[in-house]
């Protein structure tokens, strides 16, 4: 098996498993939405198909069980309840494990008990009860006993009512089913038939005409067309015809390519969706047409008669095809036809070929096609409309008379499987490279703009303008490619919260807002861990138990809100709960003990809650009050900072806690300000700079031991970059100050010179420099030099930390640790 192919499978399977999980989570509330249920069903079906293709029988087997249950659900034979969902989720998780272990070359089998429980659900409820009663099957009893009390807490009090309604509906469904009681009783083991029996519509066609023309490369992609045919055969009675008309002469045959197409007349009562499902996996390059037979009978009646007329020249069905070619008006010698004719139509063998010119080949194809078809007529027997046009002449007539739906594949109106905008999978690293290159291109184009000023270069002005415009478009488009909706991140949380609620015995209602907000793919990926961390915190320590909540006069159900949206040029993500809030006194105590805040700090100080992000703050003895698992929130903060984002927290005692992430839209590119400090150039993200002021007019002054500068009568603390960077050269006479905001306060950062604006493609500084928080990366300037990107937030925090340490050192009247 091709590794690349397997890789594709794992990628696809994981995606489908996500879809399946989301579907299962929503299923209880959307069980009347047939389109939705179909989607969920298809995700399972797709996994099964894909797993079968790569030979993962365990995955395919388990998915098959899931699929069967889902099929029952969508056809309303089995009502959705928490019990089923829990079991299905469990099975889905196991699938996940199976897929993951398969990726490591291991094989995990599903436990029989789970399979048995799934199978139990495929029986109609009436029967399920009977079974339990008469045969004393233990599994379902156990399953329902397990799940029923655990009826998902997030559903709250309304739940039982709705459930009862569902139940009554099921009873109605069962009654309907029992009208065709012999089906239920005698044929209970063949569920699909019950299914179709129930929602059979009087005018439902009794079968389909399917034309299945796999693409040339279908075998290379590992798809086996015969498997598809087998699957169709399982659905009912089928008449197969091979169309070998595209098989080339022997010397032109590539054994790795497929030249065959099939015509299938399928007699079945299955809905058309079932047929579509069979073809889910064959890929976009295959042509598939499915036409209900009834439609054909009506609309193609004329065509059939035309066809019959055309066919009159051909031999009677049943006579040897050997005579076929001679009756066709092609002047080809009969030898190759004889050979082609002797090939049984069902055998997809390439036909032997003789060296012929292309023109002969063309007519040969034609005659060969017609001879095959005449035989097809034979096998199709008396089916009306089960005929295909023999020659081009007849074909055009058919096309004219038949509706486009029933039209023959070769016609322009052919319907391909996938009608939505085609999508392709792209290697993420390649995409990153593209974004990087697009950014560099933008920098280069910027540099070239200077040419406009040169006299004599006026004729290039238009070209340069276009270059700039196109470059920006290229850059924006490629950046856009990296963006994904936060939904990809949020979608995993309903499940997480459901599980956490189950475990903790708390009742939780989850609200998600703004999940369509788009963010850089890397950010979305790397936010998962921090968000899970905070959500766990909220459930474990933020939200109270239902009893505690009632006592506090709050609704029993706790609430967690996940919110995403834009705030200026940043994206904000919020995790909010209405729990008990942070214990400020405890935090201050801890902070003073750890030397993180001055000893006299009051609990109301807004900086207090921010302390929970300090490294080493969360220790074992705070486990129960604050963050939990011994892993500090500093990990969360660092992860977010690494994404050039920030995290903040607001908390009100008894009202709840809200964590807010603020993140850049994209990681790849920033609008920056080029500055100079001690003869080195640095880039400052423009988003961090509120304002620039010249230091010439304002004199720095010491205020309570800190360098400050007065800006419009406001005393602003100043961070001297030259000092921080240990520059040896003396301060220049004139400096510029970048005003930034840190923890709600304005802070100035002094630099030597402002050099202008730049667009910077951000690159990592490389291994071993990750701890240098003051630089968020590096970029390459237009002249090829590398320039470091300053993170003003980290720089201010760094110098603040140094000051606090110095303060403490002074307070303890010891020599200064850090100057």
């Amino acid at each position, binding site marked *: 098996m091709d590794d690349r192919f397997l890789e594709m499978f794992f990628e696809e399977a994981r995606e489908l498993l996500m879809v399946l999980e989301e579907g299962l989570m929503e299923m209880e509330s959307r069980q009347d939405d047939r389109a939705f249920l179909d989607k969920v069903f298809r995700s399972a079906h797709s996994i099964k198909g894909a797993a079968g293709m790569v030979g993962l029988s365990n995955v395919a087997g388990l998915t098959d069980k899931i699929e069967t249950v889902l099929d029952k659900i969508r056809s309303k034979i089995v009502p959705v309840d928490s019990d089923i969902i829990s079991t299905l989720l469990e099975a889905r998780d196991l699938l996940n494990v199976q897929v993951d272990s398969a990726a490591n070359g291991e094989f995990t089998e599903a436990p029989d008990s789970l399979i048995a429980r799934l199978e139990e659900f495929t029986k109609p409820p009436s029967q399920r009860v009977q079974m339990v009663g008469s045969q004393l099957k233990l599994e379902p009893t156990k399953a329902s006993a397990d799940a029923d009390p655990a009826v998902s807490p997030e559903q709250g009090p309304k739940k039982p009512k709705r459930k009862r309604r569902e139940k009554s509906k099921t009873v109605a469904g069962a009654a309907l089913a029992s009208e065709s009681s012999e089906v239920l009783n005698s044929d209970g083991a063949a569920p699909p038939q019950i299914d179709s029996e129930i929602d059979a519509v009087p005018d439902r066609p009794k079968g389909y005409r399917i034309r299945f023309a796999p693409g040339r490369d279908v075998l290379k992609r590992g798809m086996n067309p015969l498997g598809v045919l087998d699957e169709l055969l399982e659905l009912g009675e089928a008449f197969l015809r091979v169309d070998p008309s595209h098989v080339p002469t022997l010397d032109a045959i590539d054994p790795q390519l497929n030249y065959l197409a099939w015509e299938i007349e399928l007699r079945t009562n299955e809905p058309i969706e079932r047929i579509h499902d069979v073809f889910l996996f064959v890929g976009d390059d295959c042509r598939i047409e499915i036409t209900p037979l009834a439609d054909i009978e009506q609309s193609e009646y004329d065509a059939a008669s035309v066809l019959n007329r055309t066919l009159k020249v051909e031999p009677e069905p049943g006579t040897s095809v050997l005579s076929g070619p001679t009756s066709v008006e092609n002047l080809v010698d009969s030898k190759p036809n004889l050979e082609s004719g002797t090939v049984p139509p069902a055998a997809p063998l390439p036909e032997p070929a003789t060296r012929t010119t292309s023109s002969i080949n063309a007519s040969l194809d034609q005659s060969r096609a017609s001879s095959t078809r005449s035989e097809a007529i034979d096998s199709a027997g008396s089916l009306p409309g089960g005929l295909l046009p023999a020659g081009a002449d007849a074909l055009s007539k058919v096309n004219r008379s038949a509706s486009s739906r029933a039209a023959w594949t070769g016609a322009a109106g052919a319907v391909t499987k996938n009608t939505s905008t085609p999508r392709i999978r792209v290697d993420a690293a390649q995409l*990153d490279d593209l974004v*990087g290159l697009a950014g560099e291109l933008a920098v280069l184009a910027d540099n070239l703009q200077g040419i406009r000023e040169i006299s004599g270069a006026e004729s290039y002005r238009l070209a340069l303008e276009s270059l700039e415009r196109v470059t920006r478009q290229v850059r924006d488009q490629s950046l856009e490619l990296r963006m994904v909706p936060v939904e990809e991140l949020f979608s995993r949380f309903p499940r997480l919260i459901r599980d956490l609620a189950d475990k903790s015995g708390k009742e939780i209602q989850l609200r998600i807002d703004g999940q369509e907000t788009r963010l850089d793919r890397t950010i979305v990926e790397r936010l998962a861990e921090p968000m899970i961390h905070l959500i766990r915190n909220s459930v474990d320590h933020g939200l109270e138990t239902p009893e505690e909540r009632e006592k506090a006069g709050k609704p029993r159900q706790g609430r967690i809100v996940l919110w995403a949206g834009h705030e200026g040029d940043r994206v904000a993500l919020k995790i909010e709960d209405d729990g008990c809030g942070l214990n400020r006194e405890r935090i201050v105590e801890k902070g003073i003990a750890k030397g993180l805040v001055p000893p006299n700090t009051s609990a109301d100080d807004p900086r207090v809650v921010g302390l929970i992000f300090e490294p080493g703050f969360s220790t074992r003895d705070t486990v129960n009050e604050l963050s939990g698992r011994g892993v500090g929130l500093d990990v969360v903060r660092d992860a977010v900072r690494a994404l050039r984002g920030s995290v903040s927290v607001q908390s009100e005692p008894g009202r709840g806690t809200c964590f807010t992430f603020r993140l850049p839209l994209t*990681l790849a590119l920033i609008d920056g300000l080029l500055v100079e400090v001690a003869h*080195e150039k640095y880039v400052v993200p423009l988003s961090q700079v509120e304002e620039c002021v010249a230091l010439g007019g304002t004199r720095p002054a010491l205020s309570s031991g800190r360098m400050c500068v007065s800006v419009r009568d406001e005393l602003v603390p100043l961070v001297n970059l030259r000092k921080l960077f240990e520059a040896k050269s003396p301060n220049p006479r004139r400096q510029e100050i970048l005003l930034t905001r840190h923890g709600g306060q304005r802070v100035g950062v002094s630099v030597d010179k402002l050099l202008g604006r730049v667009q910077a493609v951000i*690159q990592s500084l*490389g*291994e*071993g420099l*990750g701890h240098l928080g003051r630089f968020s*990366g590096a970029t390459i300037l237009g002249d090829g030099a590398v320039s470091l990107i300053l993170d003003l937030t980290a720089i201010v925090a760094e110098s603040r930390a140094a000051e606090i340490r110095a303060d403490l050192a002074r307070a303890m009247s010891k020599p200064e640790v850090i100057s």
Partner: protein
Amino acid sequence: MLENNPVSMSPRPFGSNFAPEIHTEVERSQSYVIFQLGGEHYALEVLRVQEVLDMGALTHVPGSPSSLRGVLNLRGHVVPVWDLRIPFGLPVDSSIARAPCVLMVESNFGEQVRVTGLLVDRVSDVLEFPNESIQPSPPMGLGKAASYVRGLIRWEESFLLVLDVDRVFISLMNMAHPGGGF
């Protein structure tokens, strides 16, 4: 730190300074880049070296460990350059006659292959030696360098020290870690 723009490791031609032939008989012999550092001659497998650059303009990184000489632009990618003299315990003295070169070495950090620059005093040659010519190195007499040498090759009346470049990286990263050594 951001890793959204890892240095791509698509096969690139070797630097213009030399174009060593990579023999298919890797099993039996290997080519080595020969460089000098503090008066000793070292050998590093050619397969690990992407190219050799003359020491050009570096961008200084304030606050970085002293062993980091700076970062440079390698065809659009920012690459850190470490001075091998520091982990080898040699003085960083500009008066010593050096024709400093940067070896661009491929290294594995976790799952990512990256290119890292190593500053050496001089790159002198590329030579091929049969595998059996590598002898185990004596544990003494090499000072700090001992832990970075994984063998000796007898060459022109003296020895070439075969560099264990992965250990060099580990040591550099440890030194770079906060509180580790600066």
